[in-house]
């Protein structure tokens, strides 16, 4: 089961715990500028705080751009072979999300590898807001699907009492389906 990092920018507070956790665990130094994740903030029009994380793309632009084939994909994680890397930073330029980083002290670009040996990347583990989450690929889009289903236009709501407590129940109204067919000229019936 492959997993990826997902960002929910609405939850991000811009605290940069992800950056500092990444740098102390992965680089062994206290330096948010050496993190493989960065929070970008825009204010006040619009107000957005968003950690930029690597998507581990299947058709990775960074990999394609590398002139020495130093970037490779293994088990769904895009990584840099440091022996092959010449530090030209073509990959940094190629990433459409800006999710690779340069630091003046380092020859090799900073690239997220999902903390390869860990069960959960440090940024997701430490984020106090739940703005970076580590999810199996098959649940991607589930939230949107669920949202779509629940906001289905013909949803009805009834209130009822259970043990003296008011409760709500949602259901999809069959009558709505009929009226929908009528609007369409009863084509289904004819068929």
């Amino acid at each position, binding site marked *: 089961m492959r997993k990826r990092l997902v960002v929910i920018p*609405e939850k*991000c*507070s*811009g*605290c*940069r*715990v992800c950056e*500092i*956790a990444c740098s*102390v*665990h992965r680089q*062994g*130094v*206290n*330096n*948010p*500028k*050496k993190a493989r994740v*960065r929070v*970008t*903030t825009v*204010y*006040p*029009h619009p*107000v957005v*705080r968003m950690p930029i994380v690597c998507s581990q793309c299947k058709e990775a632009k960074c990999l394609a751009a590398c002139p020495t084939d130093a970037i490779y994909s293994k088990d769904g994680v895009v990584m840099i072979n440091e022996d092959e890397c010449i530090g030209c930073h073509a990959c940094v330029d190629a990433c459409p999300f800006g999710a690779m980083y340069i*630091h*003046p*002290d380092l020859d090799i670009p900073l690239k997220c590898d999902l903390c390869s040996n860990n069960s959960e990347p440090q940024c997701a583990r*430490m984020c*106090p*807001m739940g703005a970076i989450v580590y999810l199996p690929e098959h649940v991607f889009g589930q939230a949107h699907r669920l949202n779509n289903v629940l906001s289905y236009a013909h949803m009805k709501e009834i209130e009822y009492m259970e043990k003296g407590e008011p409760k709500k129940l949602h259901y999809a109204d069959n009558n709505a389906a009929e009226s929908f067919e009528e609007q369409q000229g009863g084509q289904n019936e004819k068929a």
Partner: protein
Amino acid sequence: MKKHKGGYFGKILHVDLNDSESSIENFDDDFASQYIGGRGIAVKLIWDNLKIHDHIDPLGPENMLVVAPGPLTGVYLPSSGKNSFAAISPATGLYGDSSMGGGFGVEIRQAGYDAITVVGKAAELSYLFIDDDNVSVIPCPELRGKGNLEAEGRIRENLSDHDVRVASIGIAGETLARFACVTSEWSRNAGRTGIGAVMGSKNLKAIAVRGHQDIPVSNMEDVINISEKAYKELGEHVMMGMWQRQGLMGVVDYANEMGILPTYNFRDTHWEKSKSINANVMLGNFKIGNTACFGCPMCCGNINLVKEGKWAGTVTEGPEYETAAMLGSNVGIDNFPGVLRANYLCDDFGLDTISTGNLIAAVIEGYEKDLLTLEDLDGKPISWGDEDRIMELIEQIAKAEGIGETIALGAKGVLAKWPQLKPIVVHVKGLEQSAYDCRGASSMALAYGTSDIGAHHTRAWTVGKELEAGADWSIEEKVDLVMYHQHIRSLFDMFGVCRLPWIELGFHEDFYAELYSAVTGNQYGLEELLKVSQNIYDMTRAINVKLGAKKADDYPPERTFVPIHSGPLAGKVCDKAEYETMLNLYYKKRGWDKNGNPDISC
């Protein structure tokens, strides 16, 4: 001598704007142990500067501005994004400082400095750019009159770097308003004591910083273990969710129920309309996001948007409690969008919301009581909750226009022009009181009175504890608590970390001693660190004595001795005799003489 293996770069950057020259001063481990960092180093540097100059005009080129994060700023630990701005205050004429959150201090550390000092005056409006080792003074006359929001964006554009950290002043700093603040990341403020005016007097519009260096840490494994335990403990705290949602706005209801919410210029301490400016109103219709300082899980910053009505389109980070109270109940605004608008204007103009709300309230009461004439008010009347006129006043203060020119001079300037307002201007040493009434808790009166910078709550916030548990406290217990707060809170400012995990979520003080030990590679106990803090407090006092502070300046505002008008603490008042006893005991316990002079002199 303790050898530090982390925590310090051992470097102070000195900048002289007279000739745009900069130099580096190296300091040793002894210096670090003696002053720790942040506020501690700032006090030492200002002390040294006072040795050079016989007289310091707070708005003169000789006044030294110190910007100092601490040895824990930017370190992997909860809430490590703090940074002190210090100088001789134009509001009080005494030592002044104010701390700022966000990421500005972290960036200074990453540029490799433990502190920055600025003296002199630039030939034209300029900003200081510190790019690791490269320091330059860049003229920016085009930014004259620009608000903080625009100035910060323009400097980022000018340097072609979206991530550069900027601390700027607004129009109020340029016009030398005595309560002008310094603003970073659009809305993180070093609000108090008029540091913005000190920058303005130096023609210094902003300081921009970019750094890449590792923050030195001696024992990384210990830091990781201690800090991750701390993050976990805070994350699981029962109040954490409430904190993340409300931040300090939750204090509005608390203060109102306790009877300490400043209302109508501190006349009342309880407001029947407080529900119109509380956290529920904010959460219901206005909040669109959280903000946090560096490394902080508590995200006390609330971003709010006004979606409709007269102030539609207003976006502001805030208010927090102080602003909601000072620009809400204290001036009678019962319309939350109005509070947001006033907050936004203060941030953009670069005015301290506490002093602004305090002095506007004094003017309203002064007019109400016929102590001020319509002529004094430029012919335009003002009353409680008059939003339009209050917004107009904020702008007039920032631009030093009309009546605003007088208000911008702060409590001292206002009283010099209108001495008849003496009973109703609520200040200590010239600094306007912040948003906790102290009549129900005499320890808080002592905290305001003896505060080195004037009537500011963060020096010693004892009001909550005394009201909740202090009914039977002896005078000595009250004095001890004030002194403990004055020392432990200084320590937070010296380390460059926030006090909120401690005061709000009960996080233990020992954690910081443990971390400072892990970062420096030396064993430190809390008691030992508090001793350093006490020494800094004595030094600050000696600075103030040299600058003319007397025992007479150590009393709370006159209003403290007038009974509370209404609410749960109606009739409560600070007893003059009790205060006198407390103050004398306080001096004695500090080892100061009966006039409040310490045995060291600057």
